[in-house]
Protein backbone atom coordinates (compact mmCIF):
# COMPACT_ATOMS: atom_id res chain seq x y z
CA UNK A 1 0.00 0.00 0.00
CA UNK A 2 1.53 3.31 -1.00
CA UNK A 3 1.62 6.24 1.33
CA UNK A 4 -1.39 8.45 1.84
CA UNK A 5 -0.48 12.04 1.04
CA UNK A 6 -3.73 13.93 1.19
CA UNK A 7 -6.76 13.12 3.25
CA UNK A 8 -9.67 15.49 2.78
CA UNK A 9 -12.94 15.08 4.62
CA UNK A 10 -16.06 17.15 4.16
CA UNK A 11 -14.23 20.30 3.05
CA UNK A 12 -16.26 23.49 2.93
CA UNK A 13 -15.24 26.89 1.70
CA UNK A 14 -17.62 29.82 1.91
CA UNK A 15 -16.93 33.34 0.76
CA UNK A 16 -18.81 36.33 2.08
CA UNK A 17 -19.81 38.77 -0.59
CA UNK A 18 -20.48 42.35 0.34
CA UNK A 19 -22.91 43.57 -2.20
CA UNK A 20 -22.63 47.26 -1.51
CA UNK A 21 -22.84 49.33 1.62
CA UNK A 22 -26.49 48.97 2.49
CA UNK A 23 -27.25 45.48 1.30
CA UNK A 24 -26.75 42.53 3.56
CA UNK A 25 -23.76 40.36 2.80
CA UNK A 26 -24.33 37.06 1.03
CA UNK A 27 -22.62 33.75 1.35
CA UNK A 28 -21.06 32.06 -1.65
CA UNK A 29 -20.65 28.36 -1.11
CA UNK A 30 -17.72 27.67 -3.38
CA UNK A 31 -17.10 24.24 -1.97
CA UNK A 32 -19.34 22.09 0.18
CA UNK A 33 -18.61 18.62 1.41
CA UNK A 34 -15.69 17.52 -0.72
CA UNK A 35 -13.65 14.59 0.48
CA UNK A 36 -11.05 12.30 -1.05
CA UNK A 37 -7.82 10.43 -0.45
CA UNK A 38 -4.70 10.76 -2.52
CA UNK A 39 -1.89 8.23 -2.49
CA UNK A 40 1.70 8.42 -3.60
CA UNK A 41 2.14 8.01 -7.36
CA UNK A 42 -1.59 8.27 -8.05
CA UNK A 43 -3.64 10.81 -9.97
CA UNK A 44 -6.94 12.17 -8.82
CA UNK A 45 -8.85 14.00 -11.52
CA UNK A 46 -11.32 16.67 -10.50
CA UNK A 47 -13.88 17.24 -13.23
CA UNK A 48 -16.67 19.71 -13.68
CA UNK A 49 -17.73 22.74 -15.64
CA UNK A 50 -16.36 26.17 -14.87
CA UNK A 51 -17.54 27.65 -11.61
CA UNK A 52 -17.99 24.33 -9.86
CA UNK A 53 -15.30 24.96 -7.26
CA UNK A 54 -12.36 23.17 -8.85
CA UNK A 55 -10.01 26.10 -8.48
CA UNK A 56 -11.18 26.77 -4.92
CA UNK A 57 -10.22 23.20 -4.11
CA UNK A 58 -6.79 23.89 -5.62
CA UNK A 59 -6.37 26.96 -3.41
CA UNK A 60 -7.27 24.97 -0.32
CA UNK A 61 -4.86 22.17 -1.16
CA UNK A 62 -1.98 24.56 -1.74
CA UNK A 63 -2.73 26.17 1.65
CA UNK A 64 -3.19 29.62 0.13
CA UNK A 65 -6.62 29.63 1.71
CA UNK A 66 -8.01 27.83 4.70
CA UNK A 67 -11.16 25.75 4.54
CA UNK A 68 -14.21 27.16 6.32
CA UNK A 69 -14.78 23.75 7.82
CA UNK A 70 -13.75 20.17 7.29
CA UNK A 71 -10.59 18.24 7.79
CA UNK A 72 -7.56 18.42 5.53
CA UNK A 73 -4.37 16.55 6.27
CA UNK A 74 -1.33 16.71 4.09
CA UNK A 75 1.39 14.09 4.41
CA UNK A 76 -0.12 12.90 7.68
CA UNK A 77 -0.30 16.33 9.30
CA UNK A 78 -3.69 17.82 10.06
CA UNK A 79 -3.79 21.35 8.69
CA UNK A 80 -6.30 22.51 11.29
CA UNK A 81 -3.96 21.68 14.17
CA UNK A 82 -0.81 23.22 12.69
CA UNK A 83 0.43 26.13 14.71
CA UNK A 84 4.13 26.53 14.00
CA UNK A 85 5.30 28.36 10.93
CA UNK A 86 8.04 25.84 10.21
CA UNK A 87 5.51 23.07 9.65
CA UNK A 88 3.37 25.30 7.44
CA UNK A 89 6.46 26.04 5.42
CA UNK A 90 7.26 22.38 5.11
CA UNK A 91 3.71 21.52 4.09
CA UNK A 92 3.83 24.24 1.50
CA UNK A 93 6.82 22.55 -0.03
CA UNK A 94 4.90 19.29 -0.08
CA UNK A 95 2.14 20.62 -2.31
CA UNK A 96 2.97 22.72 -5.34
CA UNK A 97 0.86 23.90 -8.21
CA UNK A 98 0.85 24.36 -11.98
CA UNK A 99 -1.56 26.97 -13.27
CA UNK A 100 -3.89 26.96 -16.21
CA UNK A 101 -2.61 29.93 -18.17
CA UNK A 102 1.15 29.79 -18.77
CA UNK A 103 0.98 33.36 -20.04
CA UNK A 104 -0.29 34.65 -16.70
CA UNK A 105 1.51 32.37 -14.29
CA UNK A 106 5.07 33.47 -15.10
CA UNK A 107 6.22 36.89 -13.98
CA UNK A 108 6.92 38.78 -17.23
CA UNK A 109 9.71 40.78 -15.57
CA UNK A 110 11.69 37.83 -14.28
CA UNK A 111 14.08 35.66 -16.22
CA UNK A 112 13.42 31.94 -16.32
CA UNK A 113 16.39 31.36 -14.04
CA UNK A 114 15.03 33.78 -11.46
CA UNK A 115 11.56 32.28 -11.66
CA UNK A 116 12.96 28.81 -11.01
CA UNK A 117 15.24 29.94 -8.20
CA UNK A 118 12.62 31.96 -6.35
CA UNK A 119 11.15 28.98 -4.43
CA UNK A 120 14.69 27.93 -3.48
CA UNK A 121 15.59 31.40 -2.23
CA UNK A 122 12.48 31.50 -0.09
CA UNK A 123 12.57 27.98 1.28
CA UNK A 124 16.16 26.81 1.34
CA UNK A 125 19.54 28.18 2.34
CA UNK A 126 21.45 26.96 -0.68
CA UNK A 127 24.30 28.99 -2.13
CA UNK A 128 23.83 30.83 -5.40
CA UNK A 129 25.77 28.29 -7.42
CA UNK A 130 23.88 25.36 -5.87
CA UNK A 131 20.60 27.07 -6.67
CA UNK A 132 21.64 27.65 -10.22
CA UNK A 133 22.70 24.02 -10.62
CA UNK A 134 19.36 22.84 -9.25
CA UNK A 135 17.48 25.12 -11.61
CA UNK A 136 19.52 23.90 -14.57
CA UNK A 137 18.95 20.26 -13.58
CA UNK A 138 15.24 20.90 -13.33
CA UNK A 139 15.22 22.60 -16.71
CA UNK A 140 16.83 19.62 -18.40
CA UNK A 141 14.36 17.34 -16.62
CA UNK A 142 11.40 19.13 -18.21
CA UNK A 143 13.08 19.39 -21.59
CA UNK A 144 14.41 22.96 -21.57
CA UNK A 145 17.92 23.87 -22.69
CA UNK A 146 20.58 25.58 -20.57
CA UNK A 147 20.58 28.75 -22.66
CA UNK A 148 16.92 29.31 -21.74
CA UNK A 149 18.08 30.21 -18.23
CA UNK A 150 18.69 33.86 -19.07
CA UNK A 151 15.56 34.42 -21.15
CA UNK A 152 12.30 36.12 -20.34
CA UNK A 153 8.99 34.24 -20.41
CA UNK A 154 7.64 36.20 -23.39
CA UNK A 155 10.34 34.64 -25.56
CA UNK A 156 8.81 31.18 -25.20
CA UNK A 157 5.87 29.37 -26.76
CA UNK A 158 2.90 28.25 -24.67
CA UNK A 159 4.16 24.69 -24.35
CA UNK A 160 7.62 25.81 -23.26
CA UNK A 161 6.12 28.21 -20.76
CA UNK A 162 4.10 25.41 -19.26
CA UNK A 163 7.33 23.39 -18.99
CA UNK A 164 8.85 26.29 -17.08
CA UNK A 165 5.80 26.35 -14.80
CA UNK A 166 6.13 22.61 -14.21
CA UNK A 167 9.84 23.01 -13.45
CA UNK A 168 9.02 25.74 -10.93
CA UNK A 169 6.44 23.51 -9.26
CA UNK A 170 8.88 20.59 -9.02
CA UNK A 171 11.97 22.43 -7.87
CA UNK A 172 11.09 22.13 -4.18
CA UNK A 173 10.70 18.36 -4.60
CA UNK A 174 7.01 18.29 -3.71
CA UNK A 175 5.09 15.09 -3.15
CA UNK A 176 1.81 16.42 -4.50
CA UNK A 177 1.35 18.64 -7.54
CA UNK A 178 -1.96 20.36 -8.12
CA UNK A 179 -2.43 20.77 -11.86
CA UNK A 180 -5.13 23.37 -12.50
CA UNK A 181 -6.13 22.70 -16.10
CA UNK A 182 -2.47 22.51 -17.10
CA UNK A 183 -3.08 21.94 -20.80
CA UNK A 184 -6.38 23.62 -21.58
CA UNK A 185 -4.64 26.81 -22.73
CA UNK A 186 -2.37 24.93 -25.12
CA UNK A 187 -2.66 23.71 -28.69
CA UNK A 188 -3.78 20.10 -29.04
CA UNK A 189 -0.41 18.96 -30.41
CA UNK A 190 1.38 20.59 -27.47
CA UNK A 191 -1.15 19.19 -25.00
CA UNK A 192 0.03 15.66 -25.76
CA UNK A 193 3.69 16.60 -25.19
CA UNK A 194 2.96 18.22 -21.84
CA UNK A 195 0.72 15.36 -20.70
CA UNK A 196 3.39 12.83 -21.63
CA UNK A 197 5.95 14.87 -19.75
CA UNK A 198 3.69 14.90 -16.69
CA UNK A 199 3.18 11.14 -16.89
CA UNK A 200 6.94 10.54 -17.20
CA UNK A 201 7.69 12.84 -14.27
CA UNK A 202 5.10 11.08 -12.16
CA UNK A 203 6.76 7.70 -12.83
CA UNK A 204 10.24 9.05 -12.26
CA UNK A 205 9.59 11.04 -9.09
CA UNK A 206 6.63 9.15 -7.63
CA UNK A 207 4.48 12.26 -7.59
CA UNK A 208 0.81 12.38 -6.75
CA UNK A 209 -1.28 14.60 -8.99
CA UNK A 210 -4.51 16.42 -8.38
CA UNK A 211 -5.49 16.97 -11.98
CA UNK A 212 -8.17 19.57 -12.42
CA UNK A 213 -9.70 19.51 -15.85
CA UNK A 214 -12.80 19.68 -17.95
CA UNK A 215 -11.25 17.72 -20.79
CA UNK A 216 -12.50 14.19 -20.18
CA UNK A 217 -10.42 12.52 -22.86
CA UNK A 218 -7.25 13.67 -21.09
CA UNK A 219 -8.66 12.72 -17.70
CA UNK A 220 -9.37 9.22 -18.97
CA UNK A 221 -5.77 8.97 -20.14
CA UNK A 222 -4.11 10.16 -16.95
CA UNK A 223 -6.41 9.60 -13.96
CA UNK A 224 -6.54 6.77 -11.47
CA UNK A 225 -9.51 8.20 -9.66
CA UNK A 226 -12.12 10.70 -10.73
CA UNK A 227 -14.11 13.19 -8.69
CA UNK A 228 -16.98 14.81 -10.55
CA UNK A 229 -18.18 18.09 -9.08
CA UNK A 230 -21.24 20.21 -9.66
CA UNK A 231 -21.75 23.59 -8.01
CA UNK A 232 -19.18 22.97 -5.29
CA UNK A 233 -20.51 19.54 -4.40
CA UNK A 234 -19.16 16.16 -5.34
CA UNK A 235 -21.72 14.25 -7.41
CA UNK A 236 -19.77 11.15 -8.30
CA UNK A 237 -16.49 9.68 -7.24
CA UNK A 238 -14.69 6.45 -8.07
CA UNK A 239 -11.94 4.67 -9.96
CA UNK A 240 -11.37 6.08 -13.41
CA UNK A 241 -12.40 3.04 -15.45
CA UNK A 242 -15.60 2.59 -13.46
CA UNK A 243 -16.62 6.22 -13.92
CA UNK A 244 -15.87 6.19 -17.61
CA UNK A 245 -17.39 2.81 -18.42
CA UNK A 246 -20.32 2.86 -16.10
CA UNK A 247 -21.24 6.41 -15.03
CA UNK A 248 -24.02 6.44 -12.49
CA UNK A 249 -24.94 10.05 -11.92
CA UNK A 250 -27.03 11.77 -14.63
CA UNK A 251 -24.56 14.68 -14.67
CA UNK A 252 -21.58 12.40 -15.24
CA UNK A 253 -23.53 10.63 -17.97
CA UNK A 254 -24.24 13.94 -19.66
CA UNK A 255 -20.60 15.04 -19.38
CA UNK A 256 -19.34 11.79 -20.85
CA UNK A 257 -21.84 11.83 -23.68
CA UNK A 258 -20.50 15.26 -24.62
CA UNK A 259 -16.92 14.11 -25.21
CA UNK A 260 -16.20 13.46 -28.85
CA UNK A 261 -15.38 9.87 -29.68
CA UNK A 262 -13.35 8.54 -32.58
CA UNK A 263 -15.18 5.25 -32.54
CA UNK A 264 -18.05 5.55 -35.01
CA UNK A 265 -19.67 2.21 -34.18
CA UNK A 266 -19.81 2.94 -30.52
CA UNK A 267 -21.85 6.08 -30.97
CA UNK A 268 -23.49 7.09 -27.74
CA UNK A 269 -26.74 8.85 -27.35
CA UNK A 270 -25.94 12.52 -26.68
CA UNK A 271 -27.58 13.79 -23.53
CA UNK A 272 -28.09 17.47 -23.94
CA UNK A 273 -28.10 19.61 -20.83
CA UNK A 274 -30.34 22.61 -21.04
CA UNK A 275 -30.15 25.75 -18.98
CA UNK A 276 -27.26 27.43 -17.26
CA UNK A 277 -25.15 26.51 -14.27
CA UNK A 278 -27.05 28.05 -11.33
CA UNK A 279 -25.33 30.71 -9.23
CA UNK A 280 -23.50 29.33 -6.20
CA UNK A 281 -24.77 32.35 -4.22
CA UNK A 282 -28.34 31.22 -4.72
CA UNK A 283 -28.29 27.47 -5.36
CA UNK A 284 -31.54 25.65 -6.15
CA UNK A 285 -33.32 23.79 -3.38
CA UNK A 286 -32.77 20.09 -3.03
CA UNK A 287 -30.33 18.56 -5.45
CA UNK A 288 -28.28 21.31 -7.09
CA UNK A 289 -28.55 19.56 -10.44
CA UNK A 290 -32.36 19.21 -10.43
CA UNK A 291 -33.22 22.10 -12.81
CA UNK A 292 -31.15 20.51 -15.55
CA UNK A 293 -31.66 16.84 -14.80
CA UNK A 294 -33.88 14.69 -17.02
CA UNK A 295 -34.59 12.31 -14.15
CA UNK A 296 -35.56 14.96 -11.65
CA UNK A 297 -38.87 14.64 -9.85
CA UNK A 298 -40.53 16.31 -6.89
CA UNK A 299 -38.32 14.83 -4.23
CA UNK A 300 -35.18 16.07 -6.04
CA UNK A 301 -36.43 19.61 -5.53
CA UNK A 302 -36.94 19.12 -1.81
CA UNK A 303 -34.22 16.98 -0.29
CA UNK A 304 -30.53 17.05 -0.87
CA UNK A 305 -28.87 13.80 -1.94
CA UNK A 306 -25.84 12.40 -0.12
CA UNK A 307 -22.99 10.27 -1.43
CA UNK A 308 -23.93 6.59 -1.51
CA UNK A 309 -22.01 3.62 -2.79
CA UNK A 310 -23.19 2.09 -6.05
CA UNK A 311 -21.00 -0.82 -7.03
CA UNK A 312 -17.43 0.41 -7.17
CA UNK A 313 -18.17 4.12 -7.25
CA UNK A 314 -20.05 6.60 -5.08
CA UNK A 315 -22.65 9.02 -6.27
CA UNK A 316 -25.04 11.59 -4.81
CA UNK A 317 -28.38 11.20 -6.56
CA UNK A 318 -31.90 10.67 -5.27
CA UNK A 319 -33.03 8.99 -8.46
CA UNK A 320 -30.31 6.41 -7.98
CA UNK A 321 -31.24 5.99 -4.32
CA UNK A 322 -34.86 5.44 -5.23
CA UNK A 323 -33.95 3.12 -8.09
CA UNK A 324 -35.54 5.35 -10.72
CA UNK A 325 -32.53 5.04 -13.06
Amino acid at each position, binding site marked *: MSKQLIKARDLHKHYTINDGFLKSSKKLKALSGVGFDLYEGKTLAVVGESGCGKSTLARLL*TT*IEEPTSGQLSIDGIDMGSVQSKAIT*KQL*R*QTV*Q*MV*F*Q*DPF*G*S*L*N*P*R*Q*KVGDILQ*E*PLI*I*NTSLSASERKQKALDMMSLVGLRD*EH*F*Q*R*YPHMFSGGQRQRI*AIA*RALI*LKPKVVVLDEPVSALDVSIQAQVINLLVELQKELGLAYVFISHDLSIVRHIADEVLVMYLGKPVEQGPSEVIFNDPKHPYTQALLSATPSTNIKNKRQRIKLTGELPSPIDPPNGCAFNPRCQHANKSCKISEPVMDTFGKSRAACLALDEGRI
Partner: protein
Amino acid sequence: MSATSSVSTSIRAQQWKEFWFYFSVSKTAVAGLVFLILVVLMALFADVISPHGPAEQYREFAKLPPAWIEGGQLQFFLGTDYAGRDMLSRIIHGSRLSLLAGCVVVVLSMSIGVLLGLIAGYRGGWVETLIMRVMDTIMAVPGLLLALVLVAILGPGLLNAMVAIAITYTPSFVRLTRASTLTELNRDYVTASKVAGAGPARLMFISILPNCMAPIIVQGTLSFSTAILDTAALGFLGMGAQAPIPEWGTLIAENRDLIMSAPWTVTFPGIAILFAVLAINLVGDGLRDALDPKLKRS
Protein backbone atom coordinates in the same frame (compact mmCIF):
# COMPACT_ATOMS: atom_id res chain seq x y z
CA MET B 1 29.23 31.94 -17.82
CA SER B 2 30.52 34.40 -20.37
CA ALA B 3 28.17 32.88 -22.93
CA THR B 4 25.12 33.37 -20.72
CA SER B 5 26.05 36.91 -19.75
CA SER B 6 26.54 37.86 -23.39
CA VAL B 7 23.09 36.42 -24.09
CA SER B 8 21.61 38.57 -21.32
CA THR B 9 23.35 41.71 -22.53
CA SER B 10 22.11 41.09 -26.03
CA ILE B 11 18.60 40.73 -24.60
CA ARG B 12 19.02 44.02 -22.75
CA ALA B 13 20.24 45.59 -25.97
CA GLN B 14 17.31 44.13 -27.83
CA GLN B 15 14.87 45.54 -25.27
CA TRP B 16 16.44 48.96 -25.61
CA LYS B 17 16.27 48.65 -29.35
CA GLU B 18 12.59 47.76 -29.17
CA PHE B 19 11.93 50.61 -26.76
CA TRP B 20 13.75 53.05 -28.99
CA PHE B 21 11.82 51.78 -32.00
CA TYR B 22 8.50 52.64 -30.39
CA PHE B 23 9.79 55.83 -28.82
CA SER B 24 11.27 57.16 -32.07
CA VAL B 25 7.94 56.74 -33.85
CA SER B 26 6.99 60.09 -32.37
CA LYS B 27 9.24 62.77 -33.84
CA THR B 28 8.07 65.33 -31.29
CA ALA B 29 9.15 63.03 -28.45
CA VAL B 30 12.62 62.72 -29.96
CA ALA B 31 12.80 66.50 -30.36
CA GLY B 32 11.77 66.88 -26.72
CA LEU B 33 14.42 64.39 -25.65
CA VAL B 34 17.13 66.22 -27.62
CA PHE B 35 16.15 69.53 -26.04
CA LEU B 36 16.03 67.94 -22.60
CA ILE B 37 19.51 66.51 -23.05
CA LEU B 38 20.71 69.99 -24.04
CA VAL B 39 19.19 71.44 -20.87
CA VAL B 40 20.83 68.73 -18.76
CA LEU B 41 24.20 69.38 -20.37
CA MET B 42 23.68 73.10 -19.83
CA ALA B 43 23.02 72.48 -16.15
CA LEU B 44 26.01 70.17 -15.78
CA PHE B 45 28.46 72.52 -17.45
CA ALA B 46 26.90 75.78 -16.28
CA ASP B 47 30.20 77.10 -14.93
CA VAL B 48 31.97 76.47 -18.22
CA ILE B 49 29.30 77.72 -20.59
CA SER B 50 28.01 80.83 -18.89
CA PRO B 51 29.91 83.94 -19.97
CA HIS B 52 29.67 85.59 -16.52
CA GLY B 53 29.11 84.58 -12.94
CA PRO B 54 25.40 84.40 -12.08
CA ALA B 55 25.71 86.90 -9.24
CA GLU B 56 28.32 89.14 -10.77
CA GLN B 57 27.03 92.72 -11.00
CA TYR B 58 28.13 95.10 -13.77
CA ARG B 59 26.58 98.30 -12.42
CA GLU B 60 27.54 100.32 -15.46
CA PHE B 61 25.64 97.91 -17.73
CA ALA B 62 22.35 97.74 -15.79
CA LYS B 63 19.18 97.10 -17.78
CA LEU B 64 21.05 96.48 -20.99
CA PRO B 65 18.81 95.08 -23.79
CA PRO B 66 19.64 91.82 -25.64
CA ALA B 67 22.44 91.91 -28.20
CA TRP B 68 20.24 92.13 -31.29
CA ILE B 69 18.36 95.18 -30.05
CA GLU B 70 19.89 98.59 -30.46
CA GLY B 71 22.04 99.46 -27.45
CA GLY B 72 22.70 95.78 -26.66
CA GLN B 73 26.16 94.34 -26.27
CA LEU B 74 27.38 90.96 -27.48
CA GLN B 75 28.98 90.11 -24.13
CA PHE B 76 25.54 90.36 -22.49
CA PHE B 77 23.70 88.33 -25.13
CA LEU B 78 20.27 88.26 -23.45
CA GLY B 79 20.71 91.62 -21.75
CA THR B 80 21.14 92.41 -18.07
CA ASP B 81 18.78 93.01 -15.16
CA TYR B 82 18.41 96.01 -12.85
CA ALA B 83 21.65 95.22 -11.06
CA GLY B 84 23.65 94.62 -14.23
CA ARG B 85 23.74 90.83 -13.90
CA ASP B 86 23.98 88.85 -17.14
CA MET B 87 20.56 87.27 -17.88
CA LEU B 88 22.02 84.43 -19.99
CA SER B 89 24.36 83.34 -17.19
CA ARG B 90 21.56 83.53 -14.65
CA ILE B 91 19.23 81.44 -16.79
CA ILE B 92 21.96 78.85 -17.43
CA HIS B 93 22.62 78.57 -13.72
CA GLY B 94 18.88 78.53 -13.03
CA SER B 95 18.51 75.35 -15.09
CA ARG B 96 20.48 73.57 -12.37
CA LEU B 97 18.00 74.56 -9.70
CA SER B 98 14.99 73.75 -11.85
CA LEU B 99 16.27 70.30 -12.77
CA LEU B 100 17.26 69.71 -9.16
CA ALA B 101 13.81 70.74 -7.99
CA GLY B 102 12.21 68.45 -10.56
CA CYS B 103 14.41 65.52 -9.54
CA VAL B 104 13.96 65.96 -5.80
CA VAL B 105 10.20 66.39 -6.06
CA VAL B 106 9.75 63.37 -8.31
CA VAL B 107 12.06 61.12 -6.28
CA LEU B 108 10.39 62.12 -3.00
CA SER B 109 6.78 61.89 -4.13
CA MET B 110 7.38 58.77 -6.21
CA SER B 111 9.13 56.78 -3.51
CA ILE B 112 6.59 57.68 -0.84
CA GLY B 113 3.65 57.36 -3.21
CA VAL B 114 4.70 54.00 -4.63
CA LEU B 115 5.33 52.59 -1.18
CA LEU B 116 1.96 53.73 0.19
CA GLY B 117 0.16 52.64 -2.97
CA LEU B 118 1.70 49.17 -2.83
CA ILE B 119 0.78 48.77 0.82
CA ALA B 120 -2.77 50.04 0.23
CA GLY B 121 -3.32 47.75 -2.76
CA TYR B 122 -1.70 44.72 -1.19
CA ARG B 123 -3.08 44.92 2.34
CA GLY B 124 -6.58 46.17 1.59
CA GLY B 125 -9.01 46.60 4.47
CA TRP B 126 -8.68 49.48 6.92
CA VAL B 127 -5.07 50.21 5.95
CA GLU B 128 -6.17 50.87 2.39
CA THR B 129 -9.13 52.97 3.53
CA LEU B 130 -6.90 55.05 5.80
CA ILE B 131 -4.23 55.69 3.18
CA MET B 132 -6.67 56.43 0.39
CA ARG B 133 -8.84 58.80 2.44
CA VAL B 134 -5.76 60.75 3.53
CA MET B 135 -4.73 60.97 -0.12
CA ASP B 136 -8.25 62.09 -1.09
CA THR B 137 -7.98 64.83 1.52
CA ILE B 138 -4.68 66.03 0.07
CA MET B 139 -6.18 65.97 -3.40
CA ALA B 140 -9.22 67.93 -2.30
CA VAL B 141 -7.07 71.03 -1.80
CA PRO B 142 -5.70 72.61 -4.99
CA GLY B 143 -2.06 71.57 -5.32
CA LEU B 144 -0.35 74.93 -5.45
CA LEU B 145 -2.52 76.32 -2.65
CA LEU B 146 -1.60 73.39 -0.42
CA ALA B 147 2.07 73.85 -1.31
CA LEU B 148 1.77 77.53 -0.37
CA VAL B 149 0.23 76.68 2.97
CA LEU B 150 2.93 74.09 3.66
CA VAL B 151 5.71 76.50 2.75
CA ALA B 152 4.11 79.13 4.96
CA ILE B 153 4.29 76.62 7.81
CA LEU B 154 7.77 75.27 7.01
CA GLY B 155 9.20 78.65 6.10
CA PRO B 156 10.19 79.86 2.62
CA GLY B 157 13.19 78.34 0.86
CA LEU B 158 13.96 76.08 -2.05
CA LEU B 159 14.20 72.88 0.01
CA ASN B 160 10.94 73.47 1.83
CA ALA B 161 9.26 74.36 -1.45
CA MET B 162 10.41 71.08 -2.94
CA VAL B 163 9.16 69.09 0.06
CA ALA B 164 5.81 70.89 -0.05
CA ILE B 165 5.36 70.24 -3.75
CA ALA B 166 6.38 66.60 -3.30
CA ILE B 167 3.61 66.18 -0.72
CA THR B 168 1.01 67.56 -3.10
CA TYR B 169 2.16 65.15 -5.83
CA THR B 170 2.16 62.03 -3.68
CA PRO B 171 -1.57 61.15 -4.03
CA SER B 172 -1.38 60.67 -7.79
CA PHE B 173 1.42 58.15 -7.35
CA VAL B 174 -0.45 56.39 -4.57
CA ARG B 175 -3.59 56.05 -6.67
CA LEU B 176 -1.73 54.91 -9.74
CA THR B 177 0.31 52.31 -7.86
CA ARG B 178 -2.67 51.04 -5.92
CA ALA B 179 -4.70 50.59 -9.11
CA SER B 180 -1.89 48.68 -10.84
CA THR B 181 -1.26 46.62 -7.72
CA LEU B 182 -4.90 45.60 -7.55
CA THR B 183 -4.82 44.35 -11.14
CA GLU B 184 -1.52 42.53 -10.72
CA LEU B 185 -2.44 41.04 -7.34
CA ASN B 186 -4.92 38.60 -8.84
CA ARG B 187 -2.64 37.42 -11.60
CA ASP B 188 -1.47 33.83 -11.46
CA TYR B 189 2.21 34.63 -11.13
CA VAL B 190 1.54 36.33 -7.80
CA THR B 191 -0.40 33.28 -6.62
CA ALA B 192 2.49 31.14 -7.83
CA SER B 193 4.90 33.12 -5.66
CA LYS B 194 2.48 32.71 -2.75
CA VAL B 195 2.39 28.97 -3.30
CA ALA B 196 6.18 29.02 -3.23
CA GLY B 197 5.93 30.68 0.17
CA ALA B 198 6.82 34.28 -0.66
CA GLY B 199 6.18 36.80 2.11
CA PRO B 200 4.43 40.16 1.73
CA ALA B 201 7.63 42.14 1.11
CA ARG B 202 8.81 39.81 -1.61
CA LEU B 203 5.37 39.74 -3.25
CA MET B 204 5.10 43.52 -3.19
CA PHE B 205 8.56 44.53 -4.33
CA ILE B 206 9.78 41.62 -6.43
CA SER B 207 6.63 40.16 -7.93
CA ILE B 208 4.22 43.05 -8.26
CA LEU B 209 6.17 46.31 -8.36
CA PRO B 210 8.26 45.70 -11.51
CA ASN B 211 5.06 45.00 -13.41
CA CYS B 212 3.50 48.29 -12.28
CA MET B 213 6.45 50.46 -13.25
CA ALA B 214 5.46 51.57 -16.77
CA PRO B 215 2.61 53.93 -15.81
CA ILE B 216 4.58 55.12 -12.77
CA ILE B 217 7.55 56.11 -14.95
CA VAL B 218 5.26 58.06 -17.25
CA GLN B 219 3.58 59.80 -14.33
CA GLY B 220 7.04 60.56 -12.95
CA THR B 221 8.14 62.25 -16.16
CA LEU B 222 4.98 64.29 -16.36
CA SER B 223 5.28 65.29 -12.70
CA PHE B 224 8.84 66.37 -13.38
CA SER B 225 7.63 69.15 -15.67
CA THR B 226 4.85 70.30 -13.36
CA ALA B 227 7.32 70.22 -10.48
CA ILE B 228 9.56 72.66 -12.35
CA LEU B 229 6.52 74.80 -13.05
CA ASP B 230 5.32 74.75 -9.46
CA THR B 231 8.78 75.46 -8.06
CA ALA B 232 8.94 78.45 -10.40
CA ALA B 233 5.48 79.52 -9.27
CA LEU B 234 6.46 79.32 -5.61
CA GLY B 235 9.67 81.16 -6.43
CA PHE B 236 7.67 83.86 -8.17
CA LEU B 237 5.41 84.22 -5.16
CA GLY B 238 8.47 84.61 -2.96
CA MET B 239 7.88 81.30 -1.18
CA GLY B 240 10.45 79.21 -3.01
CA ALA B 241 14.08 79.97 -3.77
CA GLN B 242 15.04 83.32 -2.25
CA ALA B 243 16.06 86.40 -4.20
CA PRO B 244 19.75 86.26 -5.15
CA ILE B 245 19.46 82.59 -6.16
CA PRO B 246 18.90 82.50 -9.93
CA GLU B 247 15.93 80.14 -9.90
CA TRP B 248 13.75 80.72 -12.98
CA GLY B 249 10.60 81.65 -11.10
CA THR B 250 12.57 83.88 -8.75
CA LEU B 251 14.16 85.56 -11.76
CA ILE B 252 10.74 86.55 -13.04
CA ALA B 253 9.65 87.70 -9.60
CA GLU B 254 12.63 89.91 -8.91
CA ASN B 255 12.33 91.58 -12.31
CA ARG B 256 8.58 91.91 -12.51
CA ASP B 257 8.70 95.65 -11.80
CA LEU B 258 10.76 96.01 -14.97
CA ILE B 259 8.18 94.33 -17.19
CA MET B 260 7.46 97.63 -19.01
CA SER B 261 10.95 99.15 -19.04
CA ALA B 262 13.08 96.04 -19.54
CA PRO B 263 10.74 93.24 -20.71
CA TRP B 264 13.65 90.86 -21.63
CA THR B 265 14.45 90.34 -17.95
CA VAL B 266 11.08 88.63 -17.52
CA THR B 267 10.61 87.14 -20.97
CA PHE B 268 13.69 84.95 -21.21
CA PRO B 269 13.28 83.11 -17.87
CA GLY B 270 9.64 82.59 -18.89
CA ILE B 271 10.68 81.14 -22.24
CA ALA B 272 13.21 78.89 -20.48
CA ILE B 273 10.45 77.52 -18.23
CA LEU B 274 8.12 77.10 -21.20
CA PHE B 275 10.56 75.13 -23.32
CA ALA B 276 11.87 72.95 -20.50
CA VAL B 277 8.34 72.00 -19.46
CA LEU B 278 7.26 71.46 -23.06
CA ALA B 279 10.25 69.22 -23.79
CA ILE B 280 9.66 67.08 -20.70
CA ASN B 281 5.98 66.75 -21.50
CA LEU B 282 6.79 65.61 -25.03
CA VAL B 283 9.22 63.03 -23.68
CA GLY B 284 6.60 61.88 -21.17
CA ASP B 285 4.01 61.42 -23.90
CA GLY B 286 6.52 59.51 -25.98
CA LEU B 287 7.37 57.29 -23.01
CA ARG B 288 3.72 56.57 -22.40
CA ASP B 289 3.21 55.51 -25.99
CA ALA B 290 6.36 53.41 -26.00
CA LEU B 291 5.73 51.68 -22.68
CA ASP B 292 2.03 51.01 -23.05
CA PRO B 293 1.72 47.43 -24.30
CA LYS B 294 -1.79 48.12 -25.56
CA LEU B 295 -0.46 50.64 -28.05
CA LYS B 296 2.22 48.29 -29.37
CA ARG B 297 1.93 47.54 -33.02
CA SER B 298 3.37 44.65 -35.04
